[in-house]
């Protein structure tokens, strides 16, 4: 469909409706980010930027991040606003199918999980676990554009 993007990670490829995901996030970005008062902490981009991950590690860390959002973020982001909730679940569905698609390929092709991506993902989990679940999930959701910018 229009706006679908195919990402290639070595032997693996995953298709995501990036235009749709981006549009959904843009519609709720101000709402979600305004619920995150903590300026001094980022889940994804500090202290280590995603942009420093080696290309050979992209397959592994992309799958880890997609699963992270599915398992630890979207489910903890219910709000009192039904419009926002609908956009979140639409994005969550896109992430779920991409995560499954990449997960199957990872098993078959053994995507390399190098030391760097393992360390990077550990740091992301540590940042996440440094906050209470709802704050951590809302902050992570507010950083979705950081993930999408890096993926693209």
């Amino acid at each position, binding site marked *: 469909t229009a*706006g679908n*993007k195919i990402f290639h990670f070595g032997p693996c490829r995953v298709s995501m409706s*990036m*235009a749709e995901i*981006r*549009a959904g996030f*843009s519609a709720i970005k*101000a709402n979600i*980010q*305004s619920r995150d008062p903590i*300026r*001094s*902490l*980022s889940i994804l*981009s*500090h202290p280590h*930027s995603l*942009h420093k991950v080696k290309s050979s590690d992209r397959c592994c860390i992309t799958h880890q991040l997609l699963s992270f959002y599915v398992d630890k973020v979207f489910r903890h982001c219910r709000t009192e606003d039904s419009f926002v909730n609908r956009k979140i679940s639409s994005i969550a569905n896109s992430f779920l199918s991409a995560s499954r698609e990449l997960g199957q390929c990872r098993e078959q092709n053994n995507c390399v999980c190098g030391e760097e991506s393992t360390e990077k993902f550990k740091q992301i989990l540590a940042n996440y676990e440094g906050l209470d679940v709802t704050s951590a999930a809302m902050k992570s959701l*507010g950083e979705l*554009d*950081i993930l*999408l*910018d890096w993926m*693209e």
Partner: protein
Amino acid sequence: SGELYCSLPNPRNVRFESINMKNVLHWSAPEGTGDGVLYKVKYAVYGVGKWIRKPECRNINRTWCDLSSETSDYEEQYYASVKAFLNGTCSDWMETARFNPLTDTKIDPPMVSVSSTDRSISIMLTAPEKWKRSPEEESISLLQVYPGLQYNVSVLNKKTKKRWFFSISNNTLVVPWLQPGTAYCVSAQIHVPTPLLDSDFSK
């Protein structure tokens, strides 16, 4: 921090206005304050705990501050904040929303140059450059920033008012089979599919 008791109304509508990643902080004066209000500005990289003062925007009476240099790394996101002062009192710090230079900038139309033979038009398109600190600094085309960048081109026959639209990824287009001795109007727009960014059409 030696701050005065702050009873002044706050600056309003504090936001970044960005074109080709020239990122300028704008705000409106506090309600009901006439002349004489001064401002100071600070900014922060999202995820890093430090607010940094902008010396060139300290005690200024204008309502904008160019933070392009401080926000030029488009892999980062930023906040900025403004405080107003008048007659010994001050306002609160008023912050922007989180600013992502990559998705929150506007893009100028492309430069269009046209050459023609008697039956065809050759159109050359040039994407604008990212803002840079000085003319000597290396130029970065927005094409490098947005690899998926495309051009939408409109060609109008001024006599028949018939219009053609083309969507191309490379920067040249040849339009054949045109009518000799006829005026055509060419206009082009930049389209970035994701993150979704569209420029205006060129004049």
